[in-house]
């Protein structure tokens, strides 16, 4: 292995042949640097306790071999305590899988497209909870599900007007669908309908569980790698949930602000203080406004140069 040339990782995340302008990944599997399956397994005691310190410097220097990336990420994201044993983790895993299926079932009961292997990209309810019969949704859901989505909503309504939280959730479902079909579309992985609907299901369940955040554009991009790396849908959900614990603040919204604005305002003041040159140059190009709202726009400008 030592001295062997670095291997590009593109073959692990295959790109559709018609997508010719996709940049090649800069990540390379470097023997002796990248955390390999062998090194990873060697970091566990026979009971399954992980000496994560042994692996971190490799991860830092050479990344993680794609074949073990999913399981390593589970630890890095904090799904499991490194010092737990195989048995303990297995128990937690099973419990979490059950929890996920219970939530998914709740969602399925409200809106049976969840878990059906299909998804929607047009709204099914109005803001006041009235059903919408969009021909597109009928088309998207007709086969495999006995009832059409408008029938589903009508059925829901037969128990009285929809609960506000149900309406809020249902209003996000088509937005999730619209983003799912635009997430990592260059990958062969997403040519499979089942992977698209997996992404949709996880985001729909997440939106149901985390009502403060629901679904916000950008979340599909964060969820996608989990699905690619972890075959089990529930495991992927929990990795995503862990990641969202750190990031959900960015997506929370009030009447007047998007969560990420707090970060941007901090970044703005740091820049103003320490990066006078950039600030001056931005000012001179009509771009700079001291208001925080414009800062996200300025960051695009900086990163694009």
């Amino acid at each position: 292995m030592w001295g062997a040339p670095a291997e590009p990782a593109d073959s692990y995340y295959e790109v559709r042949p018609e997508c010719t302008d996709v940049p090649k990944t800069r990540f390379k599997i470097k023997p002796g640097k990248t955390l390999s399956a062998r090194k990873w397994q060697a970091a566990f005691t026979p009971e399954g306790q992980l000496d994560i310190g042994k692996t971190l410097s490799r991860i830092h220097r050479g990344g993680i071999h794609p074949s073990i990336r999913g399981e390593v990420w589970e630890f890095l994201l904090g799904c499991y305590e490194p010092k737990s044993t195989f048995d303990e983790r297995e128990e937690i895993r099973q419990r979490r899988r059950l929890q996920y299926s219970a939530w998914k079932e709740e969602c399925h009961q409200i809106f049976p497209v969840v878990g059906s292997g299909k998804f929607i990209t047009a709204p099914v309810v109005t803001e006041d909870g009235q059903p919408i019969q969009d021909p597109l949704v009928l088309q998207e859901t007709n086969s495999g599900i006995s009832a059409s989505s408008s029938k589903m909503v009508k059925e829901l309504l037969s128990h009285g007007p929809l609960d506000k939280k149900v309406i809020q959730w249902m209003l996000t479902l088509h937005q999730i669908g619209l983003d799912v079909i635009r997430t990592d579309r260059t990958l062969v992985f997403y040519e499979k309908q089942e992977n698209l609907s997996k992404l949709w299901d996880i985001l729909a369940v997440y939106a149901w569980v985390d009502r403060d955040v629901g679904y916000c554009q950008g979340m599909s991009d964060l969820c996608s790698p989990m699905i690619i790396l972890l075959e089990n849908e529930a495991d992927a959900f929990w990795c995503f949930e862990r990641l969202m614990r750190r990031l959900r603040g960015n997506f929370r919204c009030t009447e007047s602000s998007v969560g990420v604005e707090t970060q941007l305002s901090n970044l703005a003041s740091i820049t103003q203080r320490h990066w006078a040159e950039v600030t001056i140059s931005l000012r001179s190009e009509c771009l700079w406004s001291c208001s925080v709202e414009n800062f996200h726009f300025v960051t695009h400008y900086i990163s694009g140069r």
Partner: protein
Amino acid sequence: MAAYRADEDYDYLYKVVLIGDSGVGKSNLLSRFTRNEFSLESKSTIGVEFATRSIRVEDKIVKAQIWDTAGQERYRAITSAYYRGAVGALLVYDVTRHVTFENVERWLKELRGHTDSNIVIMLVGNKADLRHLCAVSTEDAKAFAERENTFFMETSALESMNVENAFTEVLTQIYHVVSRKALDIGGDPAALPKGQTINVGGKDDVSAVKKVGCCNA
């Protein structure tokens, strides 16, 4: 964005916003106009992006700074900054998705609530290449545009149909509005009907006549 060049020479800088529901093709209209690019694999827009392109209108160079935003309702929280100083807008719907046309009214209301009354608005029915899937008739859209006093065009960012025309028309109309205002002010400022002024070179205003300048800070 790399397309932005500070040394470009121009006579006018106009801020134009792209608005409309998620997935109607706003970002691809922008990339088609500013870079002549289209991507079937484009991602959803997060927050705000922008690009610029200069065109010639009559004997002047007009630089369009075009802002593109996420279509999701959630991002409406940052709209006041998004609309600030805009003198033109392309209100985009997807001709294959009727609901995106139904929402045009809401977008229009929001746009008018946040911008100067002289803003030049064009209603744009995008994805016109998908004729067999068309769910919004040209007549309906035209009637709506007439009623609301906006311009109207059907475009295809994919086939590069009418994209150039739509942006050029908006920029030309803005140019006319702005130069008419300049003329009016030069002649008899008191003759300007109230509420009709177009704000150029204001403090928070991106769009400006270059010579007046918004960068004298």
